[in-house]
């Protein structure tokens, strides 16, 4: 079996950092995730391409190829309607979509817990389409964590190794190593029913990681946690993935979480993939209205006429960047790309409107404005200037390169 080479390094770091695993609840454990992983991060860089530099990395992260995956439940419910997708080795890949979009079904097919009706699935070099879950080098962090309540934390961690016939001494060594890597401290000797949600999440992660799978699957692992803990664990999870260079497939319905964590995101809807790309692409260049709306954009306007780089919508005429490709159906203006100037000023891509509503959020303010018969939203950073008031007449300015055309 391949080892976790960087796990030992992590151990050293944990050793010399000030992070003494005091007893205490999870606040303590979370407060000091990976004492010095910050410089580990910069050492390796966030990209998987840096991994060969990771001192003798023998572990081979696996790529995943999905080809024409179909799945229906019963006669009517189509969960997956032809999914073709390639996930690179060592990638933090996120399946994003609303509930019922098929993301969890896809993850379960990767784990082998669900069988595709049609299509092929390859992990690494191996076609695993018909391979049962216990014969796949894939481990899952379940949404409910699914820890075994009749076993101690230590026994939970050792479960996968035991099932694979790893001998007792090795089991103990590897459990101890992963416990140090995830900094479980004294949690390891507790019973499952003595753990909080955040602690359970960490144990579930450690239980899957200790098996050193080719691919780690995570089914909304943070959805049961409150916001603060959640963002801490997001960072921690990301660091773990970068340090191990393991392929992570992460399922979530939260687009912010997806953007923070992923190398690439696949947006799913109705059992099909809408768009695949890095977070910036998906957020800034959504291919269709569904992706745009799911990523939180509401400023979508049907294009009534397009002549070269000039498009006409209910807002008026706007000029696109020369050579803007894409569909001619909808125009997307992201709220944060708009400048709001006082008074009525003239110029290209200048729109005139009136403030209808203002939501003050401290660091920024959100505006709803009436431009002719249309409504548009704008977000402005609060840099200390005077913020427009409700009923102010203002001018909205948007740069040509920030205008995106989107399919319906």
């Amino acid at each position, binding site marked *: 079996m391949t080892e976790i080479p960087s796990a030992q390094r992590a151990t050293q770091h944990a050793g010399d950092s000030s992070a003494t695993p005091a007893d205490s609840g999870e606040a303590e454990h979370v407060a000091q995730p990976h004492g010095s992983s910050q410089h580990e991060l910069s050492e390796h860089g966030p990209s998987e391409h840096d991994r060969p530099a990771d001192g003798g990395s023998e572990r081979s992260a696996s790529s995943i190829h999905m080809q024409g995956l179909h799945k229906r439940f019963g006669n009517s419910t189509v969960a997956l309607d032809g999914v073709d997708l390639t996930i690179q080795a060592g990638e933090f890949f996120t399946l994003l979509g609303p509930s019922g979009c098929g993301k969890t079904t896809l993850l379960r097919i990767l*784990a*082998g*817990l669900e069988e595709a009706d049609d299509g092929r699935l390859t992990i690494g070099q191996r076609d695993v389409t018909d391979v*049962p*879950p*216990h*014969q796949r080098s*894939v*481990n*899952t962090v*379940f*949404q*409910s964590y*699914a*820890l*075994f*309540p*009749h*076993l*101690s934390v*230590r*026994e939970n961690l*050792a*479960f*996968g190794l*035991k*099932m*694979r016939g790893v001998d*007792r001494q090795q*089991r*103990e060594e590897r*459990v101890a190593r992963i416990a140090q890597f995830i900094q479980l401290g004294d949690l390891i*000797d507790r*019973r499952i029913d003595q753990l909080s949600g955040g602690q359970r999440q960490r144990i579930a992660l450690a*239980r*899957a990681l200790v*098996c050193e799978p080719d691919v780690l699957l995570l089914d909304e692992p943070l959805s049961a946690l409150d916001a603060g803990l959640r963002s801490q664990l997001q960072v921690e999870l990301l660091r773990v993935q970068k340090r191990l260079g393991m392929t992570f497939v992460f399922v979530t319905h939260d687009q912010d979480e997806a953007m923070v964590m992923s190398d690439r995101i696949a947006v799913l809807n109705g059992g099909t993939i809408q768009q695949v790309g890095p977070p910036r692409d998906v957020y800034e260049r959504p291919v269709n209205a569904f992706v745009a709306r799911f990523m939180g954009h509401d400023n979508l306007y049907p294009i009534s006429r397009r002549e070269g780089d000039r498009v006409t919508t209910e807002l008026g005429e706007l000029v696109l960047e020369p050579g803007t490709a894409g569909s001619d159906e909808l125009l997307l203006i992201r709220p944060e790309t708009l400048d709001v100037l006082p008074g009525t000023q003239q110029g290209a891509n200048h729109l005139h409107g009136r403030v209808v509503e203002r939501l003050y959020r401290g660091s920024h303010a959100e505006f709803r404005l009436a431009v002719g018969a249309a409504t548009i939203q704008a977000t402005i950073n609060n840099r200390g200037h005077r913020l427009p008031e409700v009923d102010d007449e203002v001018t909205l300015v948007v740069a040509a390169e920030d205008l995106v055309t989107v399919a319906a």
Partner: protein
Amino acid sequence: MNDTAVLGRSRAMVTETRHLLFTVSPGAAWIILFLVLPSAYLMGVAFMTNGPYGLPEMPLSLESFRQLAGFGFLGWSPGNLYTLLRSLWQTVVATGLVVVVAYPIAYYITTCRARWRPIMLLLVVVPSWTNQVIRTFGWMNLLAPGTPLSAAAETLGLIAPNMGLYPSNFAVTLGLVYNFLPFMVLPLYAAFEKLDTAQVEAAQDLYATPIKAFWHAVFPQTLPGLLAGVVLVAIPAFGMYVIPELLGGGKALMLGNLVANQFSGGSNWPLGAAGAILMLLATFAGLYAMRRIGKRLGGGEEVVI
């Protein structure tokens, strides 16, 4: 002022004590009247001498225990020992079979749709609403010589011609399994229902074959239910009177029959009392063993990985 306050408080306490006595006394009276006193009486009878009409007489002696152990006028005979062993054996076999039959039933009910589950459970329980004696007579009719079941067994060469499946040890075991099935299905069902199916998937995800997933992830979690079921089945089965009496045809006596015969025939009350005490002790020993097992499984203090 102060005095009245103290007085008030003590008066409140008295009221509370009275209140407590009032609420506890019916239950306590019941227990004393119907459990403690009869048990004490039984205990006393066991140490008395058997009189001419089978009724207990003074002086106190250990005669009944000697007889229970098998010592009679003609020296030692193994009859009572056999009865005890037969009771234990029947209990073990019947309880084991009940587990084997009930486990899949309980599991199957958990896999049914939620609205069907109460109906399935009802189907398991409803037969026990009929009187046990009547149901046992039903089995007699089903198993008697010449019935289809007996004929089938005869054709297969399982029994000698014209013997019938009843009366026999087999009939007793069957009767016990049938009778106690609900007492095992219900606690097992409760245990299964608490089980998170994601744990089974997690086990398989962690390289457990289906069999290993059952053995390491499912079975241990149903053990509390299983132990509860074993207690509910084994204890009454051990003291069972009706089923061995009717289905055994008087040939396969269990301890319960031995005890009952000492009282009903008017033959030997002290011996019957001694038998009852033996059963009570055996029951306590069994309960204690279950408790120990349950503690070891539930405590999980020692770590085995």
